[in-house]
């Protein structure tokens, strides 16, 4: 049996090969990642760096007009950390975020499970409604919520009175801050449900039905099937959704600001409102920036656990 032997190609110059290989292994990855780094640097790192820089300066209206701040080191941080109002704001923001995230998660999970069970027509209708809610600009929808909870002409007071829940004529939803924040949680959760529901529903479609069936054959009840079969499979999606909801709800601004006619009282200050009030309300941009930096730090702490879990899940996958 004859073997055809092809003449080898002329040998390239070995040092040149090595250089090319070196370049490819050392330079190419950086070249490939550099556009992303440039974009991320431009849209994230630069503003964040500017924010930190601003938080270390006294930057009032005079400085704003002159485009020249005065360096004060950590003074802004010192003054907010001793401000009792700031402590209240942090606690309020965390509780508000917790309430919003838990409610959003529970309601969205229930809705997405419901979507699996209903007929196709109903599913299309519910999905359309969800997308409609999602597509409505926040300002518009919050304005409508504001009308609904209006003190004098609000449909909510009218309905509750007609339904004999109580006498809600001239009921002011916002004179008691706990109740007012409850209404705001409702508005925020309402706006957050579509994204979370649709995401979870997409995840649920990936759960293999034979695993569920097997669990059912083995005698697992509905709750057990969800908790021991569906939930673990959905864990990565839950983690992402919790992480995003926490970030969004912790930084909530529009709903509170618009609902309270752009003049929220200090009982309704969340950290974003407080930062805005200090920056633009009393023209202390440096102070406002330092609050925003603290907000970022708190968020990093709060979401650290979820991000770590997400990374773990990704590594296992």
């Amino acid at each position, binding site marked *: 049996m004859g073997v055809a032997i092809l003449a080898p190609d002329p040998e390239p110059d070995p040092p040149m090969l090595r250089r090319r290989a070196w370049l490819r292994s050392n330079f190419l990855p950086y070249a490939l990642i550099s556009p992303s780094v440039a974009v991320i640097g431009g849209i994230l790192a630069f503003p964040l760096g500017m924010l930190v820089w601003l938080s270390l300066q006294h930057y*009032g*209206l*005079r400085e*704003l*007009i*002159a*485009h020249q701040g005065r360096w004060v080191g950590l003074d802004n941080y010192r*003054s907010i950390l001793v*401000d009792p109002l700031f402590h209240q704001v942090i606690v309020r923001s965390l509780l508000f975020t917790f309430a919003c995230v838990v409610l959003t998660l529970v309601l969205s999970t229930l809705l997405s499970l419901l979507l699996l069970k209903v007929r196709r027509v109903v599913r299309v209708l519910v999905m359309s409604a969800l997308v409609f809610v999602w597509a409505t600009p926040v300002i518009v929808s919050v304005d409508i919520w504001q009308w609904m909870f209006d*003190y*004098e002409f609000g449909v909510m007071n009218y309905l509750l009175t007609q339904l004999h829940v109580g006498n809600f*004529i*001239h009921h*002011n939803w*916002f*004179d*008691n801050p706990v109740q007012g924040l409850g209404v705001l949680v409702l508005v925020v959760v309402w706006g957050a449900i579509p994204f979370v529901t649709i995401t979870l529903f997409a995840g649920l479609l990936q759960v293999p039905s034979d695993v569920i069936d097997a669990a059912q054959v083995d005698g697992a009840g509905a709750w057990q099937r969800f908790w021991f079969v569906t939930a673990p499979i959905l864990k990565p999606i839950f983690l992402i959704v919790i992480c995003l909801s926490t970030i969004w709800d912790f930084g909530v601004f529009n709903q509170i600001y618009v609902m*309270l*006619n*752009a*003049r929220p*009282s*200090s*009982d309704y200050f969340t950290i974003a409102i407080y930062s805005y*009030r*200090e920056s*633009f*309300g*009393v*023209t*202390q941009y440096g*102070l406002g920036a330092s609050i925003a930096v603290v907000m970022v730090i708190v968020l990093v702490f709060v979401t650290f656990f979820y991000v770590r879990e997400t990374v773990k899940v990704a590594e296992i996958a």
Partner: protein
Amino acid sequence: MNLRKTWFSVVPIAVALVAAACGGSTPSSTNPADETGTLTVWLMNGSAPKSVVDGVNADFKVKYPNVTVNVEIQQWGDIGTKLDTAYAGSSPPDVVELGNTLVAKYAAAGALEDISGKKSSFANSSTWLQSLTDSCTVTKKLYCVPYYAGSRAIIYRKDFFTAAGVTPPDSLDGLLTVGQKLMTAHSSDPNFSALYYPGKYWYAALPFVWWQGTLSSSNSQQGLTTLDNLVTKLSRADKTGDEAKQDQAFAQGHIAMIIANGWEVGVITSATGGDPSLADKLGAFPIPSHVAGQTAPVFLGGSDLGVAAKSKHQNLANDWIAMLTGSKHMTEMATVGGVIPNTTSMLGLGTGLNSVFFNAAKNSKFVPNSENWANVENANVLPDMLVKIFTGQQKVPDATAAASTRITSILNGGG
């Protein structure tokens, strides 16, 4: 080299250069018809009637045919933020109407042109209302032109008063009595307010605070307690709301009295959003004092007109302001717009209902003229205090003490 030839050629060039140099600068100061560009003017919502603005622009067009004037109407709600941003930029609006409590902040920060040297070029500058002139004066320099003033009185429904058999009161006790009679007369109407008072309406609270002394003084606290009592017994307005919609609410027919500016009569009786049929049914009387027969000092609100320090058309801007604040258009502001004109020489223009408001201006006060006062307003210190009192979250002494501390801190440059 032919010296003579050189000489002849140099002279025309020199002449041409001189002519060119003059040509570049003289027309701007001598011939208004050669001025070009766009003048941006920010006026506040509800300040000058459209007819007045159109009149000023028409006069301006005659003098400066090649200059375009853009008058943009701004809303009071978020004006502080908008002004900060505008003045920080490189091309802020040339002319800005500033609430009289805002001027000190922007003047001190260097946002406004010092017009001390141009004062005499404005009409009636020797008889400008003192309080408005004071609001324009920062460290003895003039930074704006007084525009108009507004003072509050009580607008009431004459027909409701007649039906309930009451007349305008001349003391705070009388106000409560009259209000309670009106409430009784309309007891079948669950939406009726004898005195409609939205909780965040801090301008209207000042006459009660200004009995004597400062916010935390016992007299002021007594004044606020009286106000709280009036609001509790006579008002069904939103205790956390503001006064933005009180005129529309008044026009609905379930309100007997509101504390309002003179120009609000026009809003109440306008065909859009108001009720024109109320025109003959409205009366006005000054806010009574706790001392029978006297009136309470009111807050003299108002607006000034400033030119941006960074404006590229300062002369045009000042000329536009001079036209708006000239006698011709100021008269229209008082008669058509119903506002108190910027000069004492025109206070006689207030007739009928307007005269009540014009007279109220004579017993008026102003908030501290500090560069940081605007921050007190933007931080909502006083509205917050009132809401806490009216909703029962805080007692008057606690609420005033907290507000007083906060105001002092902000006035001293803190947050």
